[in-house]
């Protein structure tokens, strides 16, 4: 079947089998390998993307669900327009050592960005509750929580400055 959607701001149209998962579509057909597959069983959150602005697990999403939708992947995150900078949440992960191997990071960042957009400045409890669906095997989470709080504050400050 033919599906049309907006992918990281660009109109996209592809022919897919209805049983194709969005992870496979992104990684194998659209060459967007930033979306990772950790568990493939809906547990780990390495595959989180934003579907119409809301974080979802793309390993548990069939391609037909994209038809007519807006999809944002980690590749579509950007810093200030024209600046060629990292997104404030990515910058915060770098500054605060919020990653080690980096495998979980795209999903962490996508979940964190949505959380910050939803709630503004975040408390530690909100961050921990919000990251329940994202697993990291390296960091012990401490620095991820610090990163997300810092990233949310930076996003909030950037918005206030606009």
């Amino acid at each position: 079947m033919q599906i049309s959607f907006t992918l990281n701001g660009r109109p996209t149209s592809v022919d897919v089998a209805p049983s194709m998962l969005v992870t496979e579509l992104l990684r194998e057909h659209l060459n967007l390998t930033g979306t990772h597959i950790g568990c493939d069983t809906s547990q780990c959150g390495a595959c989180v993307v934003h579907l119409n602005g809301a974080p979802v697990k793309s390993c548990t999403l069939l391609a037909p669900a994209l038809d007519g939708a807006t999809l944002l992947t980690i590749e579509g995150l950007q810093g200030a327009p024209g600046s060629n900078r990292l997104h404030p949440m990515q910058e915060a992960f770098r500054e605060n050592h919020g990653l080690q191997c980096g495998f979980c990071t795209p999903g962490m960042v996508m979940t964190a960005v949505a959380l910050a957009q939803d709630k503004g400045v975040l408390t530690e409890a909100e961050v921990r509750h919000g990251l329940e669906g994202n697993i990291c095997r390296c960091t012990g989470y401490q620095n991820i929580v610090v990163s997300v709080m810092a990233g949310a504050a930076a996003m909030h400050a950037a918005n206030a400055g606009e």
Partner: protein
Amino acid sequence: MKAFAYHQPGQIPEAAKLLAAEPDSKLVAGGMTLIPTLKQRLASPPALIDLSKLPGLKGCTDNDATITIGAMTTHAEVAKSSLVRARIPALAALASQIGDPSVRNRGTICGSVANNDPAADYPAGVLGLAATIITNEREIAADNFFRGLFETALKPGEIITAVRFPVPLLAGYAKFKAPASRYALVGVFVAKFRDGVRVAVTGAGPGVFRVPPMEHALSQGFDPASIAAIRIDTDNLTSDIHAEADYRAHLVTVMAKRAVQAALSERPAS
């Protein structure tokens, strides 16, 4: 995953017809349970019938005595609904504790109710509030709907369109999460109505059930102390890698007390 045909009907009768046409085909709502099942090849339906294009299945409405939640309303939408938070905050709180944010953005109330996982949260809310399950064919009282492990009163080809909840005087939900899955090891929903109290337990056994001795005691005095000494029988409880039946029985009393406490200090879920 085996290949399947994919239908996106625009009207409920059309969806019912498609479902009847191929007996093993499956409805798909949020897919958060169905897609993992397909991946594991525990099911290989010839066709999926996607409910997302059907009109009128999303959102929450109310009248004097009830709130009705459309089948395709996601857990995130229920958790955020100002209507649900104002009138049955315990139900919004229940929805806000399901899985994680990504699961809540896709998973739907009726997918959960139709699936009737023994550790799912909604069955406790639906049974505890004496809700009515509305299908394309009839209305079914919660007391007659849940039939044990993944079994419900739904007939093949029946589609749930909404759940209607009576608004209680007070209600509370307390869940002891299994730490890895976040499903309920034990979850207890307590609701106080003018004509009595209902207590529904999920996670503890092969399906959601009520606890009449607790309901009696709480109807006499709606206070955690009223049920502190009531311990449920372990006979029909689950023992597995996560917890022995004994421990689950203990948790039922603890969670029921917490649910009553939550109901007494009820405020909109944050």
